[in-house]
């Protein structure tokens, strides 16, 4: 039997507004507990919510980027439930009339194929606070700094058919919200969180299987692993004659398994009703068009432009445009060095490896765009070879200054002087009589391969600084002269 996995995602994105969605308190992360919670956030009696216009603008930007309908009249509702980190006893959210309606985006998969994922809707809501269960001697601590932080909850249709597609979709959402500048997208701080609805069915089946919801996945890796393990669990269950129960499950990364949350609370009745403290928000066409006019270039458009403007492959262009700051970095390097292809290789190669190694983001890169462009310029003008360039790059990463300073200080300038190279070639030929003899006796078509030995020796003698093209040329002339 061949099974098909069906996945829909609910993604929560914290919006990078200065203040909260219904109060003037700051949204900055990492402050001491309860220092960024005002009377409104604490739900003190008599306090009232006042909507933050910026949160609406951000949500509209997102909707436009998702090619979605914009809700010209959106209504906040109260979702009622008791929890200590939910100060009002209800969450202010949207249900019937969300700010963003149906839409769709294209996702790019590693095999180079693309796929369209439909957006069901996205709505604005407030985040809850945090319960802290450690260090309180049998009690829980409550930190309400996060309470009232604006979120958009992005609900997809069940259009994804593999964990890889789900990750690609999530990466696309991440890319869009960071391009728009409406979220920092930092998953480690909870700025982007994801619940996955997973079901399985036999391939070709029309009807959807019973789904489970995996809660609070907060890294791309965990999402992929959690979906895979949950889909397999469901398949095993059905193949063993069991039935999937609709429930909420948690992913345990240590054991790489999902497990049921207590189903006692499944029968929650949230008693939604329109929030009488907030009027419906009505957006004019002019407002929406103004927001559209102010949208930055989005990943798909940038990717297409990179292919056209810089002559990059579709794969390279896609890689470089996934993150806005990476794309910016690349464009600076390409512009300053005048070598787009080399710039692309370096950004995706050495720079990516360096950042990965040092666990840094592109804006924290130890080698800035200007320094990398300087390095590429020196490769281009023959001052250094690509091999030496890697050495220079490492030195720049260690803070030894720009490329020219490193080349100067370490004497890494490429030797392109004909006399000097001829001498190196002569010395190596003189010291390698056995190899020269072999070369002379070899079939002519095997000789080019045999040159590698001599080139290696000459490079070594020059400490890697001899111009490789010149070595090849002079060496061949000299060896051929011996035939």
């Amino acid at each position, binding site marked *: 039997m061949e099974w098909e996995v069906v996945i829909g995602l609910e993604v929560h994105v914290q919006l990078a507004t200065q203040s909260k969605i219904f109060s003037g308190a700051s949204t900055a992360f990492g402050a001491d507990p309860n220092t960024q919670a005002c009377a409104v956030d604490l739900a*003190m*009696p008599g306090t*009232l919510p*006042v909507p933050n216009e910026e949160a609406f603008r951000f949500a509209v930007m997102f909707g436009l980027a998702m090619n979605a309908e914009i809700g010209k009249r959106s209504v906040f509702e109260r979702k009622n439930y008791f929890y*200590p980190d939910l*100060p009002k*006893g209800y969450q202010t959210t949207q249900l019937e009339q969300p700010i963003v309606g149906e839409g769709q985006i294209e996702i790019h998969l590693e095999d180079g194929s693309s796929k369209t994922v439909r957006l069901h809707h996205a709505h604005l809501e407030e985040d809850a606070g945090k319960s802290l269960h450690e260090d309180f001697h049998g009690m829980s601590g409550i930190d309400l700094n996060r309470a009232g932080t604006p979120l958009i909850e992005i609900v997809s249709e069940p259009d994804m058919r593999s964990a890889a597609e789900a990750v690609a979709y999530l990466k696309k959402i991440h890319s869009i919200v960071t391009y728009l500048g409406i979220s920092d997208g930092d998953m480690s701080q909870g700025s982007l969180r994801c619940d996955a609805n997973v079901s399985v069915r036999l391939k070709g089946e029309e009807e959807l299987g019973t789904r489970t919801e995996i809660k609070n996945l907060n890294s791309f890796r965990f999402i992929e692993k959690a979906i895979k393990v949950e889909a397999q669990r469901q398949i095993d269950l059905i193949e063993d004659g069991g039935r999937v129960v609709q429930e909420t499950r948690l992913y345990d990364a240590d054991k790489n398994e999902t497990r049921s949350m207590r189903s006692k609370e499944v029968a929650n009745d949230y*008693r939604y*009703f329109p929030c009488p403290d907030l009027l419906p928000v009505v957006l004019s066409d002019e407002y929406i068009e103004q927001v559209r006019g102010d949208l930055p270039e989005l990943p798909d458009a940038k990717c297409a432009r990179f292919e056209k403007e810089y002559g990059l492959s579709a794969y390279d262009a896609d890689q470089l445009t996934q993150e806005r700051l990476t794309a910016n970095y690349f464009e600076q390097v390409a512009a300053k060095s005048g070598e787009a292809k080399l710039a692309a290789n370096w950004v995706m190669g050495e720079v990516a490896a360096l950042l990965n190694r040092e666990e840094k983001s592109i804006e924290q890169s130890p080698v800035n765009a200007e320094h990398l462009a300087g390095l590429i310029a020196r490769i281009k003008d023959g001052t250094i070879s690509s091999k030496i360039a890697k050495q220079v790059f490492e030195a720049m990463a260690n803070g030894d200054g720009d490329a020219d300073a490193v080349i100067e200080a370490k004497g890494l300038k490429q030797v392109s002087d004909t006399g000097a190279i001829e001498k190196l070639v002569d010395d190596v030929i003189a010291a390698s009589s056995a190899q020269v003899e072999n070369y002379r006796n070899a079939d002519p078509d095997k000789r080019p391969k045999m040159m590698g030995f001599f080139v290696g020796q000459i490079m070594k003698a020059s400490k890697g600084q001899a111009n490789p093209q010149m070595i090849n040329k002079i060496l061949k002339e000299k060896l051929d002269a011996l035939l």
Partner: protein
Amino acid sequence: MHQLTIAEIIRGLRDKQFSSVELTSHYLERIQQLDSQFNSFITVTSEQALKEAATADARLAQGDAPALCGVPVAHKDIFCTNGVRTSCGSKMLDNFVPPYDATVIHNFQQAGAISLGKTNMDEFAMGSSNETSYYGAVKNPWDVERIPGGSSGGSAAAVAALLAPGATATDTGGSIRQPAAMTGTTGLKPTYGRVSRWGMIAFASSLDQGGPITRTAEDAALMLSIMASPDAKDSTCLDRPVQDYTAQLNDAIAGLKIGVPSEYFGEGLDSEVGARVQDALKEYEKLGAELVEISLPHSKLAVPAYYVIAPAEASANLSRFDGVRYGYRCENPADLRDLYMRSRGEGFGEEVKRRILVGSYALSAGYYDAYYNKAQQVRRLIKQDFVDAFDKVDVIMGPTAPNPAFKLGEKNADPVAMYLEDIYTIATNLAGLPGMSIPCGFAHGLPVGLQIIGNYLDEARMLNVAHQFQQASDWHQQTAPAAE
């Protein structure tokens, strides 16, 4: 001095007939001597009042006196007062001292008014008799065996007993007008959104509205001019400039068209109360007004619709009282569930719990359409009734309440009988319209209120109409015997 109206106090202070400290001391002494009979105050802020009065006197001396400079008023204990316990009549908030002022309180401070203290009220403004207060029932100064009406019973009783020349109050279904009717005072509920709800503890957000209780329409106009303001802190507050509500008081009302809804004079109306209201209407005819019979066909549905919508909103508004951050918390909770159940079970009174249950039920899955949605549809029909009526008339009049003040405990066993107290007042809250109650005589020896309903933001005309009646009658000048 306690016989003076606010208008007279303002003149007296400016003419140096007395100082604010003298006046404030006088009221504080009266409260101390007399209020044990009425229980109209929960908290008296003597020290703060005298300090504010001294400041007011200094400003008056300098000629730098804002509108209500040195005038003592009392505030319903639903308005948050920075540094002063704000209980909302509940054990739940017996220990709650807000770190902020309600916009209404702020407005009075800016106007130089003195706060005598916080008045008693039904718990969370839920009640029509002021018997649900954690601080005990308020007694009607006209007969201390009787209720003063509710939920603003403390404010109404304090004004009727001449313990304050005016008091703030709130009205969700009649809580300003019905106690005004019961105590022979003048009460005004403004258009929804005219007075900010910031810092006013919510009962039913889409219906709650603050307003004044005073002895005259002129005083109500003076207080409303201070209470009303646009407010960026309340999204539902109207962003419209505030009128000078005293400007039109003396306009003649000849030619005024008064709508008299037949539905307000049917079964359930005490005949003596009905007769007093008819007398008042005749008085208006004498003043040159024209009576026009109108119909508000959906009136009968107002009470049922209200008792779905108001509890539904209340059930969510009162969820924040959970024993976690402030207010009452039960002793030694065993776990989270126990903390919630006992804090709320012990902190709320019976009527509050009843309404939370009714509201939660109305919103629950499977019942939402039958109750909440249906009630909202009814609400639109009721509003449309008024819109149609105001095409034909300038104001609408009828009784404020179906009967005069009843005996303490008389309706406690029957919640529905209690809810019917607001049968004539609730519709204006559902429609968001302004309404007033002014004294128009006595039935069974007790005050009767005439209700005046105005069109949206037409408070100035409503006050003009009330003032003209008070110029031609002296019902509002009668004082309760216990106030002497």
